[in-house]
């Protein structure tokens, strides 16, 4: 876990390890990414981390792209590629292996049981992600209001998320968020 030697190795090791514990997907791993990238490795500041999260949300594609951005800010394009592959390939290989195993031995009860047990864990992790991100980046009342409004609108309406991101960007540009 020491970042002194080769930053690419540190990235590969960090994200390969992290992905193995990322139950519930990349969003659930955000607290861990924050802890490692900001507190442990000092790759990013709090503000840079929040910015990177915003950029990853602004661009299309899977949520795992936040890892690409962390890699890029540590070691440029090579860092972006290494971090992305380290986060994706080991667990994808595992998924492939397990899916073939299950296709052969068709024990439908166990996947369902384990999945049921993991559901509260992954929701708790994602809740913690939202909380930590809100805590570190909503510095003003207006900012917290925008977050709350987007949360409510996305929960009760079928509005495309894109509109809320756009509205947030406009409010920010107008200097209303501070």
């Amino acid at each position: 876990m020491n970042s002194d030697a080769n930053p690419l190795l540190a990235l590969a090791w960090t994200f390969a390890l992290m992905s193995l514990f990322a139950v519930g997907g990349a969003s659930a791993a955000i607290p861990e990414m924050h802890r490692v990238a900001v507190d442990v490795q000092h790759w990013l500041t709090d503000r840079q981390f929040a910015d990177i999260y915003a950029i990853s949300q602004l661009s299309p594609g899977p949520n795992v792209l936040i890892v690409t951005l962390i890699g890029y800010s540590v070691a440029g394009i090579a860092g972006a590629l290494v971090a992305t592959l380290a986060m994706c390939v080991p667990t994808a290989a595992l998924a492939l292996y397990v899916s073939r195993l299950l296709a052969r031995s068709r024990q439908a009860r166990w996947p369902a049981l384990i999945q049921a047990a993991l559901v509260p864990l992954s929701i708790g992790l994602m809740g913690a992600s939202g909380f930590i991100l809100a805590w570190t980046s909503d510095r003003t009342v207006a900012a917290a209001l925008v977050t709350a409004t987007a949360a409510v609108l996305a929960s009760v309406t079928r509005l495309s998320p894109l509109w809320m991101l756009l509205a947030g960007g406009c409010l920010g540009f107008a200097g209303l968020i501070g």
Partner: protein
Amino acid sequence: MGWRSPNHRSRFFVMPPDSPPDAAPAPDLSTSASPSLIALFVAFAKMSLSGFGGVLVWARRGIVDQHRWMTADEFNETFALCHFLPGPNIVNLTFVFGSRFRGLAGAIAAFTGLVGPPVVIVTVLAALYQRYGEIDALRRILAGVSCAAIGLLISTVFRMMLPLIKRRDLIGTVILAAVFVAIGLLRLPLPAVLLVATPLSIAITVVMRWTDAA
């Protein structure tokens, strides 16, 4: 990521564990035209590039509704598997899906389609950010977008919690809250928390199923 229909899980549970998988002739319809490697790449690139704030909705739309490469049930089962395995769900799904049709080459083609184009886009954005990140207007816009994005994440959590609340799943809610406190408030390292919480949660679920069945 936030996609999870309430009836999807219950359906999964009612299914008898020993139901013969090959009895239904349905897959012939869905898998009649096995997609080529290029078709896999293009389809996943399209899904990925339409996926602002999560690809899963688009993946389901593309695989089930548009291309009919899988039935809704097949998709649900594949996703359920990928959801309880570690790693980015949608990446796992892409890999498993691609391999089902074209082996490892199919997995790599689908994965490259899913991740390749957005990685290029996001890297360009990152380069712009590194160069112009200190410009005030850009900083303000990003701050606004980030506030809204966090709100979207919170709403996903809310939608995922709904089935638990509807079922009055007290134990699930307690586990959920404990994980939230450990990670969100106490900031404990994730591996340690999961090493304790995962076996505990599985054990509780198994015991509950037994007592329910008895």
